[in-house]
């Protein structure tokens, strides 16, 4: 992954190009457009920009504020980034056909419904 990032961020031949400019260019790419739309678009942009620019050893650790803002926004608008809302891809994969019988699933006792009293 690191090499991918390096590759992607060093696409520019200009060694002096700042991280800021690189991050801006990444944001201008059409494939990011959908993420910048919607109710959390601004928060996404801020958080992504900050992360791209981050030079901390633990990348992103200097981005707590924009990260928390994005979190709060997603909590308020849980469907902010779901494809259905944006309207791209409505076809839903048919999943979840499996039933619990397919698994040897053992729940903890506290989670099991109390048996109905039979008199």
């Amino acid at each position, binding site marked *: 992954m690191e090499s991918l990032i390096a590759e992607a961020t060093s696409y520019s031949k200009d060694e002096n190009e700042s991280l800021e400019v690189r991050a801006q260019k990444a944001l201008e790419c059409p494939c990011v457009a959908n993420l910048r739309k919607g109710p959390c678009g601004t928060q996404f942009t801020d958080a992504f920009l900050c992360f791209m620019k981050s030079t901390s050893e633990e990348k992103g650790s200097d981005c707590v504020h924009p990260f928390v803002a994005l979190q709060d926004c997603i909590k308020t608008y849980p469907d902010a980034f779901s494809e259905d809302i944006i309207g791209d891809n409505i076809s839903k994969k048919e999943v979840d056909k499996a*039933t619990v019988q397919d698994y040897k699933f053992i729940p*903890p006792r506290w989670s099991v419904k109390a048996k109905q009293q039979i008199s």
Partner: protein
Amino acid sequence: MDCQNISSLISNFVDNFIDFTVCGIFLPQPTNPSPPPQTIFPSPPRLVAIGDFHGDYPKSTQAMTLAGILDPATHRWSGGSSFMVQVGDIFDRGGNEIKLIYLLHRLKHEATLAGGNLVTILGNHEVMNMNYDFRYVTREGLIEFERWGWWFKKGMDMKKLGGDEDVRDVFDGLPVSFEGVERKYWNGFRARMAALRPNGPIASRFLQDYKTVAVVGDSVFVHGGLLKEHVEHGLEKINSEVRDWIRGSPTTKTTKCPDYLLGGLSVVWLRKFSYGSNCDCEQLQSILSSIPGAARMVMGHTIQREGINSVCDNQALRIDVGLSKGCGNGIPEVLEITGGKEIRILTSNLLYRRSDPVPDKKKAEFLAPEVGVKA
């Protein structure tokens, strides 16, 4: 910059964002490829070992502080070149399982940078959860996973929207309802299954690093215990087979859970060398002698109410003090082996504090005011 590159940047951003959201910490960037599994380690200058954590974050961090490897204020590695082993059972009985997994992951990275090491051993509760045996899951633990699942799903949505075509639906094929189980818990169980099944995000990212057995210097670490047949199977082979099982494979069906992880005589369940003072020392001796250079077996799994203890002339060291609030709330204790020779027990037990009149000289030589040393 083409879209493929951008989408991998977005995915990397999303992973970090979700990590932060789920656990409040930033993890080091992953290094690729991951190092080959190592089973045998040379004797370190200082070795510390801690027993089962069972989802109790405060008590676990207390134990690691006692071990001198964790800064209690920052929760960063402070152990320098120390080598720490945690002998398994992070999961169940407590509500901070993911939080502990993340912390240990970060500590491993910091330990390596500091010239130390942190090895985590796989316990029977990790194996149970990977096999959907959730008998000992707590409500708080389920909530932690439900929250993880909710955010992980948001992350998947963001990656897809950012053009990542390889986003795997980690919930694929899992049931949405669980007959007989209260409805309010369904999402939690579904998330727990998704996270921990072989090849699930938490299993493949974190648990695959956990070793079933590790030999550090002349100490053999294992959660339950080793029998002759396990040694004959091959310790390296066990580690590598278990790792393959945990990692699963995105293309083929996951391999079966190895038999030596299941049942009372398995490496993660064995209690043969962990009960009372009646221990088959001869059998233990024979097993140890079949592992080159091994002088002792260090085990967790079976709670030692009296604290860390040893039998068979220090050949069996039982270090699970049941520290978690969910199983006894035992007083944290840590096994320390210095220079490959000197074995001590560091304890938070007030009975052994320096200010107390302790007749045993050894008990008085300890490291910090709140740390005691038992003989």
